[in-house]
């Protein structure tokens, strides 16, 4: 993949990231309002909103696992940065490429296990205790988050390893610089 060929894909990914991040931001604001409404409801109408606690916690689970895809995409996971200083240029591309492939394998394996679990829950038709939400819905956050993380990390790992193999062809970001 050359820099030219990667540009449209990059634009699509950036636009998608912006939309998804915006939706998660709106979800967080909605959670704040629901949380306050729930507390206020106890005084105004004498009761809390049924199932609101479950909705809040499940929303947080979705934020965390979809957020993991976004954080992976931006290389913003928390970690030790000494290795990034030691490995630069081509060798940096090799290191970050290997990290991405390793993360893809790990997240892919977790996604595979999640698929089995979510599938089982969906067949059982289990619902949450208060809000009657099918339990497959919150659990699917792990599946979707880990599967997309695996896909994203895998694709980027290939690009970075390609940058290691043919350093002249790739943009600095693809070589994992500035990480």
């Amino acid at each position, binding site marked *: 993949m050359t820099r030219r060929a990667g540009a449209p894909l990059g634009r699509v990914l950036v636009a998608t990231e912006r939309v998804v*991040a*915006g939706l*998660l*931001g*709106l979800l*967080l*604001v909605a*959670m*704040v*309002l629901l*949380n*306050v409404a*729930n*507390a206020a409801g106890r*005084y105004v109408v004498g009761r809390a909103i049924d199932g609101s*606690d479950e909705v*809040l*916690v*499940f929303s*947080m*689970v979705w*934020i*965390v*696992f979809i*957020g*993991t895809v*976004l*954080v992976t995409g*931006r290389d*913003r*996971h*928390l*970690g*030790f*940065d*000494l*290795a*990034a*200083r030691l*490995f630069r240029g081509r060798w940096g591309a090799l*290191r970050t490429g290997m*990290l991405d492939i*390793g*993360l893809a394998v*790990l997240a892919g*394996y*977790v996604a595979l*296990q*999640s698929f*089995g*679990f979510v599938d089982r829950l969906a067949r059982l038709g289990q619902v949450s205790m208060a809000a009657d939400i099918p339990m497959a819905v*919150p*659990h699917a*956050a*792990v*599946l979707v988050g880990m599967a997309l993380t695996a896909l994203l990390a895998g694709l980027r790992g290939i690009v970075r390893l390609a940058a290691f193999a043919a350093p002249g062809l790739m943009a600095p970001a693809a070589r994992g610089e500035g990480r």
Partner: protein
Amino acid sequence: MTWTLVALPVALFLFGVPVFAVLLAAATVTLVVFTTLPPLTLHQVMFGGVDQYALLAVPFFIFAGELMGRSGIAERLVTWVLSLTGHVRGSLGIATVGTATLMGAISGSSPATVAAIGRTLYPSLLQSGYSTRFAAGLVTSSGSIAIVVPPSIAMILYGASAEQSIPRLFQAGLLPGLLIAGMMAGYIVIWANLRGVPRHAGFEFGRFVAASRQAWAALLMPAVILVGIYAGWFSPTEAGGVACLYAMLVGRFLYRSLGWRDILATAVESVYLTTQVLVIVAAAGVFSYLLTIQGVPQGLVAWIADLGLGQAEFLIAINVFLLLLGCFLDPTSAILVLTPILIPVIGHLGIDPVHFGIIMTVNLSIGMFTPPFGLNIFVAQSVMTRDVIAIWRGILPFLAIQIVSLAIITYVPALSLALPALL
């Protein structure tokens, strides 16, 4: 199997693998290779790690911290603290500790506090003549006060695990939190005098009144949060949501510093920060689960109990153990794993469970900024864009001060138990 739970994570961490992936990889290898547990356990424990109502306080308080930073609330708090301390050499450093304490009384989240003071005060510290190392160490270590000063997420989790009153734990945490802040302020004054850091303007009553007028809504925020919790208007977790709404309304309508787009942008940034923290909590859940399944913490505690120690010796041993554990495990996991195991031991030794809750919280709050895995180090790294080694070096003197504070808190139980007895 020890190598997969100790050597493998250390090696991966040094290679620059993200912390969440380090913990998840170590746990996955251990689970698949060395246990007969079904691999579906990975999903169950990861989901269970974040499927906790108490954890809602994390995104809420992070969001509140971000809103405080962007809306000017944090800036007004800093100005107000500076109007009180400006005449002292090292006043900006003291203001950093003071703001961290006030932020702790609002957010209860250590990473959120580091994020907020790192963003607002770190550049000012550098401009005022503090060295990079000192400023980075100060900001990173100040965040730990937020865990000890009520409201505190760690205390909520301890109270739930040990079946202790959360409001009593909050009361017990107040004086120890102030002690740590006071000890840190004392060190800052000594350091600033030795280094000749420039003084700011002296104390002027007019300036104090003006700063108070500017900051009244910001100063009201901790009062609303704490009174709301103690009056039973809302739970500590709901307090996080109230803090967000308060900061949004003040920033949007009173200070007029936040537009709707700014609020959304702040929420998006909070999503990133929340994910950075909670995905580690999810992975740490699996890692802690495997440590527990293998009986590692229980074995260590049993070993300590078998030594036949008295109360004083046990407290030294447990402090060392918790400090070491805090370097590798996040407080949430450590509290949830260890509290049910330690409660019978401390009961046997006649230690007050509320006092022990404070000892445990202070220990783990120190772990929040202790290398190599202290979460606040990575949060500071993220907001200050400094490398980890520079932050580690800056932390060392503050680590020593907080360990001295811990010793005082451990051996003077009245410091923790006086307020709950009075109130």
